[in-house]
């Protein structure tokens, strides 16, 4: 176990800078998830931690050692790849023992460690099989087993569940989380799936365009997104955004859109009277009410637990997620109520959180 510190790390490919001075730390035993859209630099950062990509500038520290110039095997890390990268010509046992054999450990120690890891991951019966004889989930577990036998200070996961079907993904999510609780090792996990990030992380690092947008515990990121990018990226269905002017009407603050639609705002929004802002409201904080903003139903999507309603307010399309099963039909006009206290306000130009 060890602390991982990343200080002002920059990655350049020739003149192109893809990571712009990233700083973040994972505490000893913490499960940190790097999440962001494709091309945000999260996998590059992970590969730099692993030593598979050079560091153009800045420092990466594992434990008390700066590892910038160390080879991957000297960094005391283990990595699970998106494609698992199991050596196809070796059995499960040989795959798991490969690093130990290269380190010239004794046969007894190798056997012991492989058996222990296989026991933890329920792989004992599969030890003499080849990767091609395993299912996706089993391969995933072997990839984790290969990492466990090395007893590393930091585990790195590069989108390890992307190749699995939805059901198996949920199951493996739980298994990785259980493994973390059991081993207590520092883990850095890269994903583009915000649901994985929310459910697995102790702390989430939201990345975008080669930089960090926000770092924090999952619920803090969900409830208090630092900017409109984080607000839109975290949460499914995504947060609704409505641009407009903060005005006072009938003694209360409201958001007036260009089309003259009025949305309620909390009292504290008075501080921004006369300013153009972006209102953010999560779909679950919109309800079909007896009165409110007039909308028209475009699409009804029942998910079982919730019903997602795609609604049209003027030219604006918004989504509401309602718990009950409303008796609405496509094309029907419905009044919408939003909980003013759940509204987020962002600066229109910078996207930064105002409220």
């Amino acid at each position, binding site marked *: 176990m060890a602390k991982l510190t990343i200080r002002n790390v920059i990655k350049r490919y020739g003149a192109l800078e893809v990571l712009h001075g990233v700083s973040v730390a994972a505490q000893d035993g913490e499960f940190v998830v790097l999440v962001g859209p494709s091309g945000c630099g999260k996998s590059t950062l992970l590969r730099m931690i*692993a*030593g*598979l990509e050079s560091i153009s500038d800045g420092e990466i520290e594992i434990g008390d050692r700066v590892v910038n110039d160390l*080879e*991957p*095997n000297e960094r005391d*890390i*283990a*990595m699970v*790849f*998106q*494609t698992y*990268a199991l*050596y*196809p*010509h070796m059995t499960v046992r040989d795959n798991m023992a*490969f*690093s130990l054999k*290269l*380190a010239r450990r004794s046969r007894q120690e190798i056997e012991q460690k492989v058996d222990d890891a296989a026991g933890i991951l329920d792989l004992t019966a599969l030890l003499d099989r080849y990767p*091609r004889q395993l299912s996706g989930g089993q391969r995933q577990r072997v990839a984790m087993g*290969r990492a466990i036998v*090395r007893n590393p200070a930091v585990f790195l996961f590069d989108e390890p569940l992307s190749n699995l079907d939805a059901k198996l993904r949920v199951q493996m999510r739980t298994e990785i989380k259980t493994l973390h609780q059991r081993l207590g090792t520092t883990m850095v996990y890269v994903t583009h799936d915000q649901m994985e990030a929310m459910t697995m992380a102790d702390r989430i690092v939201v990345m975008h365009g080669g930089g960090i947008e926000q770092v924090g515990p999952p619920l803090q990121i969900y409830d208090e997104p630092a900017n409109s990018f984080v607000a839109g990226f975290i949460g499914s269905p995504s947060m609704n955004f409505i641009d407009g002017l903060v005005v006072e009407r009938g003694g209360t603050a409201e958001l007036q859109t260009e089309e003259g639609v009025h949305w309620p705002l909390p009292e504290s929004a008075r501080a921004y009277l006369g300013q153009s802002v972006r209102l953010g409201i999560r779909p679950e904080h919109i309800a079909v009410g007896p009165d409110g903003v007039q909308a028209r139903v475009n699409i009804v999507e029942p998910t079982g637990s919730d019903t997602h309603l795609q609604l049209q307010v003027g030219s604006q399309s918004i989504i509401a997620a309602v718990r009950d099963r409303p008796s609405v039909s496509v094309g029907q006009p419905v009044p919408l109520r939003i909980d003013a206290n759940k509204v987020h306000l962002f600066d229109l130009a910078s996207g930064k959180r105002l409220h």
Partner: protein
Amino acid sequence: MLDKHRSAITQSKTRPRRWFRAGEGRTAFFFLLPGLIGILLFLVLPIFASIALSFTDWQLLGTPHFVGFANYTRLFTADPQFWTVLRNTVFFTVEYLILNIVVSLGLATWISSLKFGQRWFRGIFFLPTFTPLIAVAIVWMLIFTSGGLFDSLMERLSLPFSGVLNSQTLAMQAVILTSIWAGVGYNTVLFNAALDMVPASYLEAARIDGATAWDRFWKIRLPLISPTLFFGTVMTAITSLQVFDQIFVMTKGGPGSATATLGYAIYQRGFQNFQMGYASAIAWVMFALIMALTALQFWFQRKWVHYDN
């Protein structure tokens, strides 16, 4: 009654279908005919003819007489040259095969390690593959001929290798060097393509596991390209057992019988001595040798070739 009715229905269903298929087959046969005639005339017929000829004393002109296994008996017991020719063929095959695989694998690995110019080097090394072997052999013969470029180079370096084509021991080495120059490009491109197809994630995982560049080559890359390596080895072995062009141009099997191989012996017996029956017998011995060696390679592949599916 019902059965009759049922069979009538079946017939009415199948008959037009069978007619259609027969018509389709005839059309297909018609389209196949040009190729089929070629195969029958220039492949199947000569194969059977050579089997038949190997049991005769046909001398190109005149009528062939059936001689039973006399040609084969003479080959293995009376011909003073046959065992030399066989030894030369096996010697050429073993040395050429080993050198070809080692050099082409080395070049392929080197090319795949380059950051720039991979395509250029692949192209350059592949050039001799589509150069006519006769032309290549003529150029190399001129290089190796007494007083040629090679001799003057040896003289400058004060090395005692001159007039190699006239040397009992070095003539074969000159033929092998020429064959390597001409034949290494094909396997280089083949192995290079296979090496480039090894997913980077395996090599990255191996780096994390602590594998050195040497380990990664021997323990990851080589086993993963083993099916291609096997294919290259089998094909190279087959073509080297049939070696003819470079020997015909450079040494004519000489000096003495130092470079006479089975391929050359077939030509010599058949088209110089007009012993077509005897030449056919040698051809079938060569065929048996190639089959045996290929079967052996297929048997051995179980131990070192890894298929992923």
